[in-house]
């Protein structure tokens, strides 16, 4: 269970990215965060695995306060939290297999990396992960030879290597076309339902939210302005919509 309590993030230039954000994510939930660009979605996700250091507040992960963890503890916590990114964040010049294997680094001794050593068992695990996302045949291609959708699947395979209990997905489909978006979110849904991995995902399109989310929170200017279940979001009113997205926003539907 992930509990976020009174989380605030003020950047060094004074920008308030998050203001007193609190919510709870039960195990096995598919929680979607919605909001405009700059509303604090990325900051919120990055605070959870401390890629960004929160200014105030607590984040309890199964009872442990992530914000207070030291370096060694953080390594242990981070390897339970997978993350996928809008721009995939693959090492373009490395092979797909190496990119997937890097997901396992949190479990491996640091000095092995000096000689670029991965045990055979980990390589098999990486191949299995690639099979699960359906691109095992690309294992030895360079990452920059893949299409956008394939790259995001490598990103998911990399996260799977961590044996994650939760996956943070920062606008995972914003760089992809609608068909690919459904395919990627389909993988996440499968992981969520079949392997009981909690998913925290930020999304732009409301129809995708309605299709995949079990729970939704809306952020606006760093504050939580909306909290709802799948039912709530399916019946979202114009008023609620404008409360999240601002008065000028128009509802539109993309894909299906």
């Amino acid at each position, binding site marked *: 269970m992930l509990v976020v309590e009174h989380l605030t993030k003020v950047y060094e230039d004074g920008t308030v990215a998050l203001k007193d954000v609190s919510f709870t994510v039960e195990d096995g939930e598919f929680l979607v965060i919605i909001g405009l660009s700059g509303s604090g979605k990325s900051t919120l996700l990055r605070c959870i695995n401390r890629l960004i250091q929160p200014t105030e507040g607590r984040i309890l992960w199964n009872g442990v306060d992530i914000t207070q963890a030291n370096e060694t503890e953080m390594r242990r916590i*981070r390897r339970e939290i997978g993350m996928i990114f809008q721009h995939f964040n693959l090492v373009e010049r490395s092979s797909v297999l190496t990119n997937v294997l890097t997901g396992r680094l949190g479990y491996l001794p640091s000095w092995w990396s000096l000689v670029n050593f991965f045990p055979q068992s980990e390589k098999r695990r990486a191949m299995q992960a690639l099979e699960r996302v359906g691109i095992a045949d690309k294992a030895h291609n360079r990452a920059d030879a893949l299409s956008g959708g394939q790259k995001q699947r490598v990103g998911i395979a990399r996260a799977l290597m961590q044996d994650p209990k939760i996956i943070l997905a920062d606008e995972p489909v914003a760089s992809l076309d609608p068909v690919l978006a459904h395919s990627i979110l389909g993988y996440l849904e499968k992981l969520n339902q079949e392997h009981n991995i909690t998913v925290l995902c930020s999304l732009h399109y409301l129809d995708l939210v309605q299709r995949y989310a079990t729970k939704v929170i809306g952020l606006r200017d760093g504050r939580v302005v909306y909290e709802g279940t799948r039912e709530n979001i399916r019946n979202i009113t114009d008023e609620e919509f404008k409360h999240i997205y601002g008065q000028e926003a128009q509802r539109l539907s993309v894909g299906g």
Partner: protein
Amino acid sequence: MKDGRQTQHKAWLQALLSLLVPGLGQAVGGAISRGFYIFLTEAVLSGLAVFAAAQRPRYPDYGLSFHAYLRLLGASAALVIFLLALYWLARRVSLRSEFAKTAAGPTFAALSALIAVLVAPRMVDTVLAPEEQKKLFALTALFTAMVVAAIWAWNVYDAAQVRGKAHAPSLTPFYLLLIVGIITLGARIVQINPDKAIREYKDTGVILSRIVWPWKVAFDYKASQLVAEAKVQAPCPPGATPPPVNQPQEGQPWVVVTPTCGELSKRDAKGKLTFGTQLTIRGGGFQPGKKVHILWENPIGNAFTPRGVGPTEIVVGPDGTFSTQLYIPDVTIPSMAQGAQIHTLRVVQRGTAKFTGKLSKAMKLALEKMLESIMMGLMATAAGILLSVPLSFLAARNLMHNIHTTTEGFVGGVLGLVGGAYAGKRLADVLTPLVGGLEKAPVLTFTIYVVLVLGLAIGAYRLLSRALAQAGERLHPTLSLSIGILGMALIGGGVGYALGIGYAHGILGITRGAEAAQAMAHSSGMFGAALGAALAAFWASRLGANGKIPIGQFIYAAVRLLLNIGRSIEPLIWAIMGVIWVGPGAFAGFIALTIHSVAALGKLYSEAIESIDPGPIEALQATGATRLQTIVYAVVPQVLPPFTAFTLYRWDINVRMSTIIGLVGGGGIGFLLIQWIHQFQYEQAGLAVWLITITVATLDFISANIREKMV
């Protein structure tokens, strides 16, 4: 209206202020930086004018006659009037065409510059006598002063126009005057003298041609020559038995000298020659129609061409014989040699030299040293890579800027580093005598020191920094704060003490002498310690318990500073230091190139690291990867192509540098080159220059090709 009057009033004020202090009026008028630059320019230019004037005594015949001055002024005025007339004419003629009107200005400027360069020297030639021209050279100070005055005048006019930053007249006159001033001074200081370059070029041709096409000395030639010898005794004391007179022999070259005994010529202290005995020389059996050369060989076997005692080159007659007369030359006899000595007169006729196809000694030497240079460049590049790669990561802002430590961790780290290093040194002190010490096994001993000092320092650093950082988190805040303050005070005190001692020796040693500095070192150190401890403790208390110290930024700044220093000092200077350190030779050059390569590559590498995509780093951090793992899997793959390109580029530079680093004793072909130049062996020097050129061009081509394929 009121505004206008106010502006009018201010314009006068500004002009007046600028008349007193250049630039002040502009500053008051709102154009502060404009005023500052005008002031700076005037200060620098007048300073340089004073400098030029101070050099006047070095030109004792300074000062043109009034007449010459008038002629010069008249000619200059005529030139300026001519130019202005030309400009006016150009404007008149081109009034109808917009393009021509805009083009008139630049054309006029270009034409003036052309005339200044081409016509002005000729004009000076015409109106001034040569000895007057020399004096003109000393007029730079006056001329610069005129430029200063002109800028001053312009500045007053400018000040009157300035109304805030937006309303300021064009700066073009200022820039033009500035350029004139700088060129005048620059030409004088650099002693640019085109006349000399042209006048003396013809004498250079012979030597230059030897350098440009030196291939004759690259090969060995077999010279067939005809030789005949005769013995001569000198001096000729009474009762001596002179060598027998030669007899002409058929079928081989011969020479007959009479008499075979005589007195040497003498040369007094002033170089005046008193002739000795005159010899009659007859010879035969040589090739008709060609020259023979007469050489004199002294008793210890040194042969030379006799000078000033008669002809030494004689053309052989049609029957193969010749005859001539020669005084016995003046020969410096070693002081140990007593009494009569046997000298040899040798007649040599050289035939045509035959090409053997074998490389000459000089060429072989040059090739060998060229190889040495290339290898030096290669080794320096390799060593440079090894040392600069780790440094470059420390000098990459994006990797270092977010590394922080707590006060307690910092205290533990520094104490660990210092304590560990000290313990390592003591341990090595005990251990190294067992392997023979610095004298018998220098490398092993040094390695033991490095491993122990570094190893224990890093080990203790990790242990103590972690222990104290964790203690700082667990303990009561007051307690951890006092640990932080105490530790920081200790560190600050140590640094302050070292700085205090350094101040005593480095600064007081200069102003008050070494002995006084020695006496004051202790108190200065203690004062530094107290001040350092107080400042550090104050800082620690401000940071509070678990205060954040941006240790990464400190390391970044320190490494950057080191790299900048290393790069700012030219490889040639490093080579001089290397020669002082390990003596002349390729090793000194290697050290010099390595140091410069580390600094240069470190900077290039770190900039390559700074420009990588941060996404993969973020992704790997999110998986729980350590810093080392993140670098290996997210940074290294991204920086490999630029690193390769920079390395090749550096290799290129290093081989180039290695060819001339020998000029200061750093080994390689440069060493040979400078020797040959000093011995006036221009052909051989030419060989070296050719080899360098070929090597560098080849290398350029290869590295450009590889780089193209790599990146």
